[in-house]
């Protein structure tokens, strides 16, 4: 009975409270590697809510618990990652039990407090009267969860309106509810985003404290002292200046540039604290407003559907028939899915002219296709621009952060293949952040290193290409590919062209991705024409992940 009242009061916020607790639990649990994506949590909230509606009529506490746990786990199962897959379900069950118990206690408390207050119906009216959502929602929010830390205004706004909706809901019968939920679902979804924000800032606070403590502890160490001074020199040379070092250069001061990625990660782990204390690591460097806007942006896209901004990507192909450095295995008739560039023009032309002389129809049998040796894996080198211009804001988030997101999506995409990936960072100078490693095996290290990349300095694409050539010269793969991502004008354009020609001679193909209006499209287009790859132009940096994947798919 108690539950029903609370449930009716505000079902969505109750469910999202529970999921928030689940997330908190998963974050603190040592067995969990990844506590899940925003998407799955959003879906879980909506799904549980709808499932409760489908149940129709009254749901008692036991049933409620069972449904929340089961449907929640169904939604989170593929998104959460634990150290051993067998215990994933167990961990999730524990998390839900914990969350449900906590949430139930809160409700009991709330109801006890509520007994002193005026009757429920009156409260509801009061809420409906208030024009701008917020005022009362905030108040109640305050009493309900005094202990919650770092709640921003976005969160409160979301909370306020979902409270309002919750109370409206209790007026409807369950049959109407389905209709209601169908139309409101998208709006509901967009509100859940605010939770992610509060979780993040809370965790940021926590890690911030831990690091402060650690820095104090370790500061006596001699070797460390030396590190600090090096970094200090590196950073305070000035952000736009020529001697501003990027992360790759910094790491390579302590290890060889072609060292194993695990070694580099170890170095980075030592450097981590100092990066943080100079404000170059992201977790303490989050601005409240930019985070908020980012979430807004996410949901703007969600509600709008990603389809409409497709036009912002412009692709140019410069791929000849010889794009694969491989050999012809056999000739056969045309099948669906064959690339047009693989058609043997000479034989096909003979067949077609013969058929047309005889007055017969042309069939697929007349079109002859060259079949090439199967190229199993590609060695990819990604050159990422980390110059000062990447610090500019785009929709309230630094471009570099979005680029990092895009690259991490790219890494996740490559995880399913056998491809090897190397990342080169370049500002005024270029250096190898990690050399060629199989993504399937090392993606965790890659994502870890990626999260510490920061931006500053000039742009020198030629040096990056030179580095790429060094990296690829050690590769024995038959398929090599270089992707350059840049948003500005590079120095030394002539040298770039020479480097690309050399790379091409080594058997590598080169694609370029230009971001924004500022980029030197003529040069980049020329480079990809020489390199025999794609030229992709994106106006908005948010399309970067898509552009990277388009480029990769093209080479499948």
């Amino acid at each position: 009975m108690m539950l029903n009242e609370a449930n009716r009061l505000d079902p969505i916020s109750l469910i999202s409270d529970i999921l928030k607790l689940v997330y908190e639990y998963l974050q603190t649990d040592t067995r969990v590697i990844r506590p899940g994506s925003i998407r799955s949590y959003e879906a879980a909230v909506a799904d549980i809510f709808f499932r409760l509606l489908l149940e129709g009529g009254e749901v008692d506490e036991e049933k409620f618990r069972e449904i929340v746990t089961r449907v929640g786990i169904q939604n989170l199962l593929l998104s959460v990652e634990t150290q051993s897959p067998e215990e994933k379900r167990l961990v999730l069950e524990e998390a839900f039990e914990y969350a449900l118990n906590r949430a139930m206690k809160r409700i009991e408390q709330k109801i006890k407090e509520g007994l002193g207050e005026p009757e429920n119906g009156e409260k509801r009216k009061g809420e409906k009267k208030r024009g701008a959502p917020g005022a009362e929602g905030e108040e109640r929010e305050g009493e309900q969860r005094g202990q919650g830390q770092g709640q921003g205004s976005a969160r409160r706004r979301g909370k306020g309106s979902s409270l309002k909706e919750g109370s409206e809901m209790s007026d409807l019968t369950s049959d109407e509810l389905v209709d209601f939920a169908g139309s409101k679902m998208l709006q509901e979804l967009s509100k859940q985003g605010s939770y992610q924000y509060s979780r993040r800032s809370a965790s940021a606070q926590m890690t911030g404290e831990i690091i402060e403590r650690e820095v104090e502890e370790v500061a006596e160490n001699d070797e460390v002292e030396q590190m600090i001074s090096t970094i200090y020199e590196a950073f305070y040379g000035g952000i736009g200046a020529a001697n501003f070092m990027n992360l790759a250069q910094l790491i390579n001061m302590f290890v060889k540039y072609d060292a194993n990625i695990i070694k580099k990660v170890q170095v980075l782990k030592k450097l981590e604290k100092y990066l943080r204390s100079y404000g170059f690591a992201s977790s303490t460097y989050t601005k409240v407003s930019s985070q908020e806007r980012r979430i807004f942006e996410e949901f703007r896209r969600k509600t709008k559907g990603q389809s409409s901004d497709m036009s912002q990507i412009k692709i140019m192909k410069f791929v000849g028939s010889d794009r694969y450095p491989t050999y012809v295995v056999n000739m056969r008739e045309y099948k669906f899915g064959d690339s047009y560039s693989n058609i043997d023009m000479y034989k096909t032309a003979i067949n077609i002219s013969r058929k047309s002389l005889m007055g017969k129809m042309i069939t697929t049998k007349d079109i002859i296709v060259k079949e090439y040796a199967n190229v199993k894996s590609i060695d990819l080198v990604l050159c990422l621009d980390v110059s000062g211009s990447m610090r500019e804001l785009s929709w309230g988030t630094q471009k570099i952060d979005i680029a990092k997101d895009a690259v991490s999506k790219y890494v996740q995409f490559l995880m399913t293949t056998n491809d090897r990936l190397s990342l080169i960072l370049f500002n005024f100078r270029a250096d190898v952040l990690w050399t060629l490693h199989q993504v399937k095996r090392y993606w965790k290290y890659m994502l870890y290193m990626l999260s510490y990349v920061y931006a500053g300095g000039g742009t020198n694409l030629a040096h990056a290409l030179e580095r790429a050539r060094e990296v690829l010269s050690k590769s024995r793969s038959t398929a090599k590919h270089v992707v350059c991502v840049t948003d500005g004008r590079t120095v030394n354009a002539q040298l770039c062209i020479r480097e690309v020609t050399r790379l091409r001679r080594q058997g590598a193909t080169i694609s370029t991705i230009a971001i924004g209006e500022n980029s030197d499209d003529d040069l980049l287009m020329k480079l990809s024409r020489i390199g025999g790859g794609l030229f992709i132009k994106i106006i908005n940096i948010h399309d970067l992940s898509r552009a990277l994947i388009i480029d990769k798919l093209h080479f499948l």
Partner: protein
Amino acid sequence: MVGFRKTSDQSRTQTQARDNISDKLLENLPRLSDLLRREPIQVEKLIAEAIRTKGIKNILAELDKVLRGLGDVALDLLSSLAIGRHVLIMGPVGVGKTTLAETIAEILAISDPPYIEVACHSHMTATELTGDIDIAVALQAGLDHPLAFIPGPLVMAHGKILILDEINRLNPYSQAALLQALQEHYVFIRGFRIRSDFIVIATSNPAEYSGVYELSEALADRMKVIEINYPDREVLRSILEWKSNSLLEHLGTKVPDFMVEVVTTYIMLLVQDANIEVGPSIRSAIYALANAMSRAWIEGREASINDLKVSLIENMVSTVRGNFSSEQEKKDYLLKKFDEALLIAKKMYRK
């Protein structure tokens, strides 16, 4: 020879009629230009509408005609379809994953045909999913000829439910094509961009089966997992009884209660057995029961326990997997277990 003796007049009218029919059929095929002009459809809205008009009780009642004991799972499935979340149904072979997906799609009937089904296999290419342009036709009849573009399931599923059977057998390349369609709502074919909105119900066997690829993380993140396990004893019993009797209806025989009891006990024993990794499927159990009865029917006698024993082994030996060094050892083990089940069932039945 008879065909050639017709008068020329007759044959002309015949070919004309045939031409008319084929013209009509051609008109029904989608043209590339139509596909490019497609409007977005909100499939989840259609589904929520269908659930509202049909009513949950009716849907469950209709489902009960085909599958039993899956009401709760069906609600889980419906709830996520209604909010546009893609679903992955996971469970051992033969518990009714595909049937559940098909039946739910048929009951909802949000489009005609109600669903598009793809049986995934490891050699599937991305073009098999998206479709492609037939250049031989395109060269002669133009790109917009209905036969010039052969649409794949991803394109055909616009505004429908797409059932991907055994999605775990999909290789990474086709997974990428599927992911692109899910995320951008567009399918790209030779530079053409075709709108396609659909909801996926995928089915999958758990990881212990062979020939399985991992789902890519981005794809997995878009899916909710619903697990179907073996039903509990009573439900299993009623399913076996009901399904095997419906198979035997036209023969005019009925499965005796005792036999159903024996098979139920047998399956429960095997599922709990530590030596066996993959238990027998329910489908095979149903057919084993019906098989034993029909064998007796052919010979015109009453079915015996021995018939059941033989047909059970015949039907199940290929689906059961476990720690056995040879097929013969597996057979012997299964026979031994059958005798145990028989003893237990006899005790139960007497009570």
